[in-house]
């Protein structure tokens, strides 16, 4: 059994991993940059090590310092969380070469799945449907080949992820220019200018499957997640099970995910992402070889702890669960709490967390990574926390989610909490029939409604009374003079 784990991450995911480690009696080692010295993950961990870097985010990307810290403190394993080095094959290999356990798949699998072109080739080889695509470095022949799959098309970066560098092209005239832009963006984000063109599936849904693999060709799935509520190709609301999904389609998708994982000798928890077309055809999108941000919805409906399963697989090389033992119960919804301004084109917001009061409740889970007093700058991802609500059915999960969002108090930096509420309240979301175009299609209906005069009054009064001068003037007057009021003789 692994006795201590270094968490090569920060924020909510570091906290979430530490909490499972604590429960399992495993020593947790946190790392942090000076800017994060008061962060919750530093306080929660048994030990915390400072990593030096000029730029805070660089600290969490510094393989050498991480491995040195792990060795120095006697960590048996490194958990990369998500982001940072989680899908970095070189890191995985270096960790393993040092004699430590990397809680993730083998470096080879990371390499394959990290390259979209190779990944889709692998999927095709495993008999998984893939959207019609063109891969051609020669722009002239590429344009002709694209005619074969038909417009509109999507340009994607081979090394891409998180929606960065993706472009929709509607006709041949735009293609050349858009490819050039996509290549330069890919170069900038991923240091890899390769792009490819794929048929753009109209009104697609984003369905993904949580899998567990032992690395020896055995894999099981933990059902699907619906992740179609996206802005800028990034998810902000996820749920499980996927609403309004034909059970036979669900089975097929889940089976495809297991087939792919088994074929890849996948080890660790992973996610296979699919595009589901309105005609129920589905296509492999990509595989994420790590714990996913939205994994808690799966945990909520299956009752499992995915980090615990990761640790079990990493230490034993076996799965301790069988497919038949896994069941879905009720419905879960996750909302990503982000420092951003939804009404200003999701512009990232900065500030400092002045007041933080998290909602509480049996069916509500908050994976939080920020603390009161924390400066929210542009150094890190804008996601601050996740709120997951579980209910016996979808309607009640939505209600609980809305209730918890209403009680979620985070002041000092603009967050999207109210926007999330508007999403959950929207009829299209409530009907369960929506696709990745949901936020854009309903943008006008998702704008904040103007306040009633009485609400404005309350806001103004509350604000005025909070100030020194007005609050003092309102209350700190002797009784007699307060009773007489404005009086002149």
């Amino acid at each position, binding site marked *: 059994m692994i006795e201590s784990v270094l968490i090569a991450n920060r924020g909510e995911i570091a906290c979430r991993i530490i909490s499972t480690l604590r429960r399992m009696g495993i020593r947790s080692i946190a790392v942090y940059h000076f800017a994060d010295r008061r962060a919750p993950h530093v306080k929660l961990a048994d030990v915390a090590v400072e990593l030096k870097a000029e730029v805070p985010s660089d600290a969490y990307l510094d393989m050498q310092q991480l491995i040195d810290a792990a060795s120095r403190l006697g960590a048996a394993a490194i958990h990369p969380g998500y982001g940072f080095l989680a899908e970095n094959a070189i890191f995985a290999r270096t960790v393993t070469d040092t004699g430590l356990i990397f809680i993730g798949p083998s470096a080879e699998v990371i390499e394959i799945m990290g390259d979209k072109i190779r990944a889709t080739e692998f999927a095709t080889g495993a008999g998984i449907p893939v959207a019609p695509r063109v891969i051609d470095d020669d722009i002239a022949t590429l344009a002709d080949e694209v005619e074969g799959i038909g417009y509109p098309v999507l340009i994607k970066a081979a090394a891409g992820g998180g929606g960065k560098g993706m472009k929709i092209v509607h006709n041949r005239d735009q293609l050349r220019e858009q490819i050039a832009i996509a290549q330069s963006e890919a170069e900038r984000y991923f240091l890899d200018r390769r792009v490819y063109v794929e048929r753009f599936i109209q009104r697609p849904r984003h369905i993904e499957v949580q899998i567990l693999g032992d690395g020896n060709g055995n894999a099981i799935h933990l059902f699907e997640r619906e992740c179609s509520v996206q802005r800028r190709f990034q998810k902000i609301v996820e749920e499980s099970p996927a609403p309004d999904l034909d059970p036979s389609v669900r089975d097929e998708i889940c089976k495809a995910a297991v087939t792919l994982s088994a074929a890849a000798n996948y080890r660790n928890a992973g996610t296979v992402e699919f595009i589901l077309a309105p005609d129920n055809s589905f296509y492999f999108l990509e595989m994420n070889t790590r714990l996913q941000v939205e994994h808690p919805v799966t945990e909520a409906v299956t009752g499992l702890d995915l980090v615990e399963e990761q640790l079990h697989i990493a230490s034993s090389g076996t799965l301790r669960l069988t497919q038949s033992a896994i069941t879905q119960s009720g419905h879960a919804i996750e909302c990503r709490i982000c420092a951003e301004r939804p009404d200003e084109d999701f512009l990232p917001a900065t500030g400092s967390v002045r007041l933080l009061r998290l909602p509480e409740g049996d069916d509500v889970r908050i994976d939080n990574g920020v603390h009161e007093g924390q400066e929210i700058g542009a150094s890190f991802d804008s996601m601050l926390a996740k709120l997951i609500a579980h209910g016996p059915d979808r309607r009640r999960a939505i209600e609980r989610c809305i209730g918890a969002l209403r009680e979620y108090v985070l002041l000092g930096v603009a967050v999207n909490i109210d926007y999330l509420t508007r999403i959950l309240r929207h009829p299209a979301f409530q009907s369960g029939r929506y696709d990745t175009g949901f936020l854009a299609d309903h943008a006008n209906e998702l704008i904040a409604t103007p306040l009633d005069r009485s609400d404005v009054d309350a806001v103004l009064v509350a604000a005025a009374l909070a100030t020194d001068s007005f609050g003092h*003037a309102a209350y*700190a*007057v002797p009784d007699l003079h307060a009773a*007489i009021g*404005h009086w002149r*003789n």
Partner: protein
Amino acid sequence: MPRLRSNLNTNSDEFRENYTHNRALAMALHEKQERARVQRPDRDIQRLAKQGKMMPRERIEKLLDPATPFLELSSLAANMAYDGNSPGASCITGIGIVSGREVMLHADDSSVKGGAWYPLTVKKIVRCLDIAIENRLPVVHLCDSAGGFLPLQSELFPDKHMAGRIFRNQAILSRLGVKQLSLVFGHCTAGGAYIPALSDYAVIVRGTGAVFLAGPPLVKAATGEDVSVDELGGADLHTQISGTCDYPASSEDQAIAIGREIVAQWEHPKKWAIQQQTSEPPAYEPDEIYGIIPSNIKKQFDMREIIARITDGSRFHEYQPAYGTTLVCGFADLWGYKIGIVANNGVLFNDSALKGAHFIELCNQNNTPLVFLQNITGYMVGREYEAQGITKDGAKMIMAQACSHVPKFTIMCHGSFGAGNYGMCGRAYDARLLFTWPNHQIGVMGGEQAAQTLAEVKLRQLQRNEQAVDQQVIDGVYAETLEAYQEQVTAEYSTSEIWDDGILDPVDTRNALGIAISASLNAPLTESGYGVFRF
């Protein structure tokens, strides 16, 4: 405590007549106040506006806590002097609330002759600082004055209670630990310069505020030095170099904001814990006071009717209700404060004087503030009463009253003639505050009596000199005396000369007393003690 039962018939002709008469007096008072407060030549208003200055009352309103009372003092001071050139004696004084603390405000009125100090201006400022000393009230000075009005310098400079007394009082206040803040909006020249200098805190507005012993013209004359106002005594000079002022402000608004914040730092006073309960309004309408006060000065009225319209729930615990009935004494609550009331219901006889002296002692023994309601024509005169010792009994009342250690407050309700004024805590007896109603008359004796007396003296003089008695001369003396008297006995004259702390609309009496009592509790009680009573 029992509720007083009013015997007032509000449907009577008499009530209606009195009401109309007194209400008209009150309205006339408010009109005069309005004129004294805001009526200014256009050029003065424009001059202030051009300098970026607010009117002095605007400053006060911004300085005071919103929705709190301001008890203005002597609003009609100097109104019958200097041909009306110094409305309100060119300054504003009063008790108000700044940042939750009771303070005395003194503001120069630069909308009148540049805020120049007339003799009565000095008297009003000295009085307001005397009140601050007696009641330990912090003072905020809003300075903007051209300095002393030179043509009248002999009446405002040399004597004990003239200009020097302002700065003496400031020093005494400071010695007592009472805080002072100056907001320098305009010039503080010559003596006026000592106001910020003697304050604990001074804020000065850049550009318009200036403090100097002599302004540029005088400096030029004295030493030949050519220097601008700003170089000589501006905000930057005093806050960066001389240290005469503490805070520079870039505008009047900012100066006021800084001032409010300074006051907000001051410790809350440990007020003397007077007996207090939840207050209730009087059971009878205060405006009925208009219908009680007779339009004729010679007419008597029951002071209990007034008490019923001032005290909490119109309740009154009357002391010795059957003895010495021309003096009404008793306990009541006013805005929740326990007070002792001494009120005239006729001429003072031996028994009423003794009762008064005794009740005043009771209030001192009980640490109960005293409120005197004056309507007095004097102590009873004549052989019989002298034989009974009316003079020594009156002296007892004066002794008890003068030596009281509890705060005293006096309302001049109708008439105040002769020695009764003394026993009932007239101006000379250090009432913490003394207010006059518009109908009030005051004098050593009534106008007719005085005229009669002087005519009598003239007649005797003529007779002594064995001159022919010319009835015309006698009548002349009578008419002359009466005329002079008729002006000088009025409340308006009284308040113009600052023989009081202001004229009050009778309906404002309860609030004024409440604010006054509250202010008085800032000062610790002094030791009690009396002189020798003549028995």
